[in-house]
């Protein structure tokens, strides 16, 4: 009945997750430091931070696998993420209990590192823990440090309270550069039998912006959608970014200095379903590189873009926001002779 087969249903992101610490791409500094401490059989408390898709979860899972092997990992590692209840109650009971157990030295020899005499608690997405829950962890980390190592993963280190951050060795995961992304994508293409042009990889790199997970998801989606006929445009399409012509049309509209046209243009962009956040980020690229505007105008527009972006995140109406921004750009574009005076228009 079903057209779906059981095999191959695993997303490539999971399939090609690094199995060992050495497989992790591009984070050489972090990896070399971690490997040194792994060899000594000891590990400090860890705090990994960095943008999404840079390999934080992958690295810690690979480390856990290295230390404990597939069997022991079930008993020795407690993984909690934002999908688990992690209020102060859980910190006080579940985490504290787990941290309190001592491990039996004789059974720790099954992994690659015979000397591992500690358990590991992984707190994924730690920045979504409440400050109270984090504060409750402080003393637990110290009192149980003989038997337990904590590893906190987060996107924004600023959301981890200071006393917690100071107890951990901090590792920053940087966004992947072009070569590392493309190399990994090519490796996957080879394994999966995808043939496509060099420019496609470039396109994926541009839209994914250093986020490996995004890059692999795009590659897989494009392959599932179009088979071996992947082109640059299909990638842009899947990523939900606007075709460059559309942005150009919008800018041309602004140059004409006519509100009626602008309104129709904005309406059409909205009804085509493009996310406005995407539109403004592409408009931003235009503003940065264009020669039609002078420095002060550019800075005014950039401030406006910042405001609009925040308004959107607060949930404002997309049409109004885009209309506001594009009319502001229209004003600046048609104001070239006089110096741009946008003081009354900029409200924080």
């Amino acid at each position, binding site marked *: 009945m079903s057209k779906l087969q059981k095999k191959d249903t*695993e997303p490539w992101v999971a399939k090609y997750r690094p199995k060992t610490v050495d497989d992790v791409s591009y984070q050489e500094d972090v990896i070399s430091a971690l490997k040194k401490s792994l060899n000594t059989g000891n590990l400090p408390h860890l705090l990994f931070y960095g943008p999404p898709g840079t390999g934080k979860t992958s690295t810690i899972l690979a480390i856990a696998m290295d230390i404990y092997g597939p069997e022991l990992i079930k008993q020795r590692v407690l993984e909690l993420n934002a999908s688990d209840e992690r209020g102060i109650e859980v910190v006080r009971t579940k985490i504290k209990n787990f941290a309190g157990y001592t491990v039996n030295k004789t059974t720790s020899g099954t992994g690659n590192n015979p000397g591992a005499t500690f358990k590991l608690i992984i707190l994924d997405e730690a920045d979504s823990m409440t400050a109270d829950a984090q504060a409750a962890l402080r003393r637990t980390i110290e009192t149980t440090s003989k038997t337990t190592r904590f590893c906190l993963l987060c996107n924004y280190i600023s959301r981890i309270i200071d006393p917690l951050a100071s107890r951990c060795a901090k590792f920053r995961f940087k966004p992947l550069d072009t070569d590392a992304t493309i190399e990994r994508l090519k490796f996957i293409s080879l394994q999966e039998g995808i043939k496509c042009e060099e420019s496609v990889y470039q396109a994926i790199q541009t839209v994914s912006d250093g986020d490996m997970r995004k890059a692999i998801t795009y590659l897989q989606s494009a392959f599932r959608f179009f088979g071996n006929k992947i082109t640059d445009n299909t990638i842009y399409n899947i990523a939900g970014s606007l075709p460059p012509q559309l942005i150009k049309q919008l800018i041309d509209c602004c140059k004409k200095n006519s509100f009626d046209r602008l309104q129709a243009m904005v309406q059409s962009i909205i009804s085509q*379903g493009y996310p406005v*956040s995407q539109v403004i980020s592409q408009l931003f690229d235009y503003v940065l590189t264009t020669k039609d505007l002078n420095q002060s105008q550019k800075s005014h527009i950039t401030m406006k873009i910042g405001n*609009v972006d925040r308004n959107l*995140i607060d949930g404002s109406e997309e049409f109004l*926001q885009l209309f506001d921004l594009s009319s502001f750009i229209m004003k600046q574009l048609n104001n070239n002779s006089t110096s741009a005076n946008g003081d009354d228009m900029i409200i924080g």
Partner: protein
Amino acid sequence: MLWIDKYKPTSLDKMDYHNDISINLKNMIKSGDFPHLLVYGPSGAGKKTRILAVLQEIYGPNALKLKIDHRTFKHPTSSKSIQITTISSHYHIEINPGEAGSYDRVVIQTIIKEIAQSPPIDSASLGAFKIVILNEVDKLSKDAQHALRRTMEKYATFCRLILCCDSTAKVIDPIKSRCLGIRVPAPSQDDIEKVLYKVATAEKFDLPAKLAVNVAKQSGGNLRYALMLLESQKAKQYPFQSSELPLLDWENYIGQIVKDCFEEQSPTRLSIVRGKLYELLGHCIPPELIFKTLLLEIFKKLDHDMKFEIIHWASYYEHRSQIGSKPIFHLEAFIAKFMSIYKKYNQ
């Protein structure tokens, strides 16, 4: 049965427009793999229709035999109990976590995790995984979205999520990077007209060309609205006497408000307008729609130079009304601001 339900296409082949999306989706299903999907686009563009068609494509007609359930479950830490409605078939379950209000995080943490954790019983015959459809993801709180992240990865082998929303602005990046985004644009004017004619032929009545154009224009790319409009027009008078469509009551009403504002700018006038705004809100017209319509009405009569300022204030107060709790303050502030600018400009 309403026409929108009666003529809802049930398979990807029967879609009336955006055939490229249908073809791509079919290719994807054929290849046997299927990432998490994030379907977005303006309302009435056919997102839900396409999602259901995908289900039917995978599982056959049984996927459309739906049953509605009310589930009650306990809040894990407090004694509150939360109720939520689910729509499910053998193969999928559809939830609107936003229903639980500020407890949406708990819904994600308990119900969805519970569904995702248990693999399908007979994976050979039922398809290799189950599908969870989440509606209005953009209305989910940040906490709830974070709670989804790891669940999406961990149980990806036997559970796929299809997320559905109007705008991706409020969907956090980590979720977006785990999904394949599918943009469903609003149907074009021609597309809508085509559907209208198709329905007219099936219902065996004559549709004047002018009326079709007008309905398509007024619908603003919302096919659901277009069909409703046509059906109500037919119920009202058939054969159609005129091809003019009456403006909606609230649109007329906003037109009046704008007229009031242009006539006189004074505190007394403001308090009259306030009464009218209350009336609109009392009839459940969403404030963002009022802002938008007000602005567009004002623009019809305004000088070019003033428009820059007015659009700025419209978006400014609309944003404030989103953060604040009582929209009437912000609507009124906008009107007052407009009056003062207009008066200053005319002096």
